[in-house]
């Protein structure tokens, strides 16, 4: 198992109050496998990713019973060892390509610097390596691109450069925090192809954070649905998408506009009323309690048990498993 995370908790300073962004998350990722963590804004998915890389903002507290990458306990690593690991064995790319590259240095400078930091080779060798990786992510005339500055490239091109930067040292795992959210649909498709090809070529583990269920359907091997700091359901893609068990997952899938086979019939989407709560205190109960149409009195008293469904996914909900039926629109 490439990555094992048990009971990950992240608490942020929010105007003097302690906001609990991540409230006990377990994750597993095997080499060559793509795990998608899906959830709406404010559910703590990005915080989870940043916690793995220990890049939390100032004032944030991290705690976990296990945070192991290839057997190494990440939370115990020294600053120096951690920075040696980042970019070499675990890489990360972010959502906003427009601001993710240093505006006053050329693409070449920034790529070479990452490679030389981890391998210590000469800049000529680093240059060759950079061009090789840039071409592998679909960048034509890589030589010219190396001399250019970030502001001279489009959003799609910059994201390709960032992917190249992440792949410079052939990492074993790559964390992608909504890399295509800010891009157009067509560019998104191209970027996702590059990522999948790169992953299969290198047997890389990929932790892919997104809010778009459509993307999950296309690239995920396994899916974890996150809500208000907790994973409410996780399992294989087919299981979670085709036979969602948790009411939130059902509601989420139902609210995505999708091609209606019929005419302009009942176009109403099933929507989940209310909005996402913020948790400032420990609360082991089901996070979806305040908005769940299927709420029972037990939900308001006890933490939901984690159970496995026939389709094979784990779900944290008090609802009896056999009472599943598709949530009608």
């Amino acid at each position: 198992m490439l990555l094992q995370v048990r009971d990950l908790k992240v608490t942020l300073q929010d105007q003097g109050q302690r906001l609990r962004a991540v409230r006990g998350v377990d994750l597993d990722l095997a080499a060559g496998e793509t795990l998608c963590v899906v959830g709406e804004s404010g559910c703590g998915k990005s915080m989870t990713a940043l916690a793995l890389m220990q890049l939390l903002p100032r004032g944030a507290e991290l705690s976990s019973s296990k945070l192991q990458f290839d057997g190494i306990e990440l939370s115990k690593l020294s600053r120096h060892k951690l920075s040696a690991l980042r970019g070499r064995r675990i890489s990360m790319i972010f959502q906003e390509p427009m601001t993710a590259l240093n505006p006053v240095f050329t693409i070449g400078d920034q790529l070479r610097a990452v490679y030389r930091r981890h391998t210590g080779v000469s800049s000529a060798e680093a240059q060759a390596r950079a061009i090789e990786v840039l071409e592998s992510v679909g960048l034509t005339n890589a030589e010219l691109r190396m001399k250019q500055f970030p502001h001279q490239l489009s959003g799609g091109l910059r994201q390709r450069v960032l992917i190249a930067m992440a792949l410079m040292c052939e990492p074993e795992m790559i964390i992608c925090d909504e890399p295509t959210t800010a891009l157009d649909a067509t560019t998104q498709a191209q970027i996702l192809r590059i990522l999948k090809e790169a992953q299969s070529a290198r047997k890389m583990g990929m932790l892919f954070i997104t809010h778009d269920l459509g993307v999950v359907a296309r690239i995920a091997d396994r899916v974890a649905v996150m809500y208000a700091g907790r994973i409410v359901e996780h399992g294989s893609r087919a299981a979670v998408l085709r036979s969602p068990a948790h009411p939130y997952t059902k509601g989420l899938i139902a609210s995505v506009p999708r091609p209606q086979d019929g005419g302009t019939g009942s176009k109403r989407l099933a929507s989940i009323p209310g909005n996402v709560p913020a948790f400032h205190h420990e609360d082991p109960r089901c996070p979806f309690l305040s908005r769940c149409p299927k709420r029972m009195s037990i939900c308001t008293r006890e933490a939901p048990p984690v159970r496995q469904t026939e389709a094979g996914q784990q779900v944290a909900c008090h609802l009896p498993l056999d009472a599943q039926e598709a949530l009608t629109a």
Partner: protein
Amino acid sequence: MLSFLLKRATMAVVVMVNVSIICFVLSNVAYDPAIGIAGAQATDEDLALIRQTYGLDRPLLVRYGEYIGNIAQGDFGVSYLTKRPVLDMIVERLPVTALLAILSMALALAIALPLGSAAALWPDTIIDRLAQLLAVAGQAIPNFWAGLLLIVLFGVQLRWLPISGSESVAHFVLPSITLGTFAMPPLIRLIRAGMIEVLASDYIRTAKAMGIRPFQITFKYALKNAVLPVVSLSAVQLGFMLGGSIVVESIFALNGVGYLAWQSMSRSDMPVIQAIVLLISLIYIVLTLLADLLNAYMDPRLRSARK
């Protein structure tokens, strides 16, 4: 890049014309130059004679045209008092003021750069508190009061430093400390805010995610971005200090342009005053232009995409 230069150059010319108009009005309309030229024992006939010979009765526009013509050839007129060409008087004293401004600026930067950056690197620590306090206090200290206190303390009681005159560098220590406290606060504030903003930026987070060493992140990746705005602010501050030198030079009896301005002020020696104002405005414009050039050079976004 060229069109940017052209645009700034036209702006500079227009500004200089405005300044010259204001100076002309100041020295010819709000004040009767005839009295200035005639001096003490002028009788009314003398004044009329002078207005005649100097053509002061011609329409304003003609006189302004002539005034600009003279300035173009470097003739800034003659001082009412010493009857010497104003330009020579100013040029004689420029080195003193220039040295004072540069030393004060160096002092301000020498404190603001390290302190500002440190305050950003270790927020909410003692250094951060100190930096903010220094910025706020520095802005609140009346610099002429500071000058007097420095004279009493270092000049008279401790006798470490000479009090007035401009012979050796030592004579410039107290004045540049006084003028330096004038320029330092905005610099500290800007560097601290700039550094904080840069350190919280996405590209710094990318660098950390890629494992770049913290030292290189701070001094190479972050500093180069944070320093950009400091360049233009320093140019502006240097320009302001030329104005601020008036107070400091009169306290420390430094025979600079500022002190000359103050002396001419009390004697209403208008040609000198207007020449000094013109000169300081010109220096300010040139400095800001240079700062823009330096910025454009250092910041690739400006260098290529300059509209």
